[in-house]
C-alpha cells in the first residue's frame, strides 16, 4: 500500500514538474520566424512594428529562443511584449508547437 501511495506522489510531483517550464527568448511572429525583421520591415519601422504588422494575417505571436519559433497560446499578452526579451512560463505542446502560457514577463532590464 505504501508503495502505491509513494508511486502516486512521485507521479504527481513529476506531472507538476512538467506543467511549468520556463522559456527565455524574444517575442516574434511566425511569419518572420527566425529570420531577422530587417528583411521584412521597411526603413523607419521598428521590430515591434514589423511583428504587429505580420500578425494581422494567419501568422501569430511566437517566442524565438534563438533557434526555435514556438507559438504562444496567449496572444493578447504576447502582443504587449512584441520584440522584447521575455521569460515565458508554461507547458510546451510538441504536436502543435505551442507553449500553453501561464505567464509572460519582460526580462529587458535584467
Amino acid at each position, binding site marked *: 500500500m505504501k508503495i502505491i501511495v509513494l508511486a502516486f506522489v512521485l507521479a504527481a510531483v513529476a506531472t507538476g514538474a512538467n506543467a511549468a517550464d520556463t522559456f527565455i527568448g524574444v517575442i516574434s511572429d511566425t*511569419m518572420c520566424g527566425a*529570420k531577422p525583421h530587417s*528583411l*521584412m*520591415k*521597411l*526603413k*523607419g*519601422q521598428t521590430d515591434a512594428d514589423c511583428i504587429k*504588422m*505580420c500578425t*494581422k*494575417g*494567419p501568422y501569430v505571436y511566437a517566442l524565438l529562443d534563438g533557434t526555435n519559433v514556438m507559438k504562444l497560446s496567449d496572444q493578447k499578452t504576447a502582443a504587449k511584449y512584441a520584440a522584447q526579451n521575455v521569460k515565458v512560463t508554461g507547458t510546451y505542446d510538441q*504536436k*502543435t508547437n505551442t507553449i500553453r502560457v501561464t505567464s509572460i514577463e519582460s526580462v529587458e532590464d535584467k
Partner: protein
Amino acid sequence: MTCKNDAHTLVRPASSWRLVLGILAVLFVVNSLSAQSSPDSSNSGMVEMNPASIFLMNLASGTSGNPASWPMPMLAMHFGSWNTMFMATAFLADIQQSGPRGGDKLYSTNWFMATAEHHVGSRGAFETEVMLSLEPATITNRSYPLLFQTGETAYGVPLEDAQHPHNFVMSLGFHYTREFGEDTILDVYFAPVGDPALGPVAYPHRASAMEVPEAPLSHHLQDSTHISDEVLTVGMSYKKIKLEASGFYGSEPGENRWTIEAGPINSWSTRLWFFPAKNWATQFSVGRITHPEALEPGDQVRTTASLHYTRPISGGSWSSSLIWGRTHNTASLHNLNSYLAESVLPIRRDNFLTGRVELVDKDELFSDQPTIERQLDVLYGSTFRIGTYTVGYTRDVSLIRDVETGIGANFTAYTLPDAIKPYYGDHPVGGNVFIRFRLRSPE
C-alpha cells in the same frame, strides 16, 4: 422568353486584342520580376512589407477575404524586393449521377493564381494578379453534368443539369493600396477580368469549399460574378470594417472561354465586410447586374450575406461558411433564394471530411423545353426549391514534393418537389471520385 445578347457579339472582334494586351501585361510583370530576381536560392518568404502589403496578402478573390486566421496554401517567394505568391489547385474527377437527367463524365476543374506585390513608399503597395484555368480544355463539350445546375450556355443552348467551365483568364487585375493613419487602408482595384464587390468569397477561393471539385448549386445566385469584365472597385478599410463599391460589365462570360471580353461598366454593387476576430469574416452585399444571362431577358438585383469561420486546429484549419443569396430578375419578376452551409474538417493532417447543404430556388430547369415549362408553370408555378446534401472525404497521399495530393470521393442526395419528380426520378443522387492536387505551403 429568349433574346440574343448583342453586347457579346459586338465585343467579340476586340477580344483577341484584349487577350494580347493581357498577356503583354503579364509578360511585363514577369520580366520585371526576372530583372530584379536574385540568383540565390534563398528567396523564399516575403520581404520589405508594410501594412498595405499585408492587407493585399490577405485578400482572396478580387477584394474579398477569408477569415484572417486561414493559412492560404501557397508558395511565397521574393524576387529582389517583389513579393510573389503562387496558388494552384486541380481536381481530376469522375462524376456519376442517377435518374433520367443525370449524367456521367470524366472532367477536371483547375485554377492557378499568381500575384506580385511591391511596396510604394512606406505606406503604399501595388499588386498585380493573374488567375488562369485550363477548364476550357479539361471540361469537354463546354460543361460537366451537375443535376439541377443552370446558368450560362453551351452551343447556344441554356445549360440545364450542367455546369460551365471557367474562363482561361479567370482574373487579371491590379491593386493600389495605401495606409492612411493606423488601421485605415484605401484599396483601388482595376481588373479587365476580376471579381467585383458582390457576394461571398467565390467558391474556388473559399476555405470551406476547398475539398469539393464541383460548383455549388447556388453559385449563380451568390458568387457568379467572380469572373466579370471591366471591374473597378474602391474600398476603405478601418480596423474591423471594410466598405467597398464596384462598377463592372454585367454580362456573364460568353462561350469562347479562351478570350477576354469587354463592355461598358453598366453594373454596380456595394459590400460591407465585418471581421469581428481573426477567425471570422462576414459580409453583406447588394448589386444590380445588367443583363447577365445571354439568353434570358432582364437585369438581376442580387443581395447576399455570408458568415465564414476558420478555426486553426492540430493538423490544419476547420473552415465553415453560411451563405444566403437572393436574386430578383427584373423581367420575369422571379425572386430566387439560395442558402448554403458547408464545412471542411481536417483530421490528423491527412484526412478531410467535407459537408455541404444547399436549398436553392430554380426557375430555368426546363428553359429549352417550353412546352413542359408552360405546363409546369400553369399547374405548379415556375420556381422549384431543390435541396442538396453532400458529404465527402479526401485522404492525402504523399506523391509529389510541394504538392498536396489527395484521393477523395463525395456523394450528393437531392430533394425536389413532387411536380418535377417525373423528370428527375424520386430520389436522384450523384457522386464524384477524384484526385486533388494543390500547391502546398512549405513546412
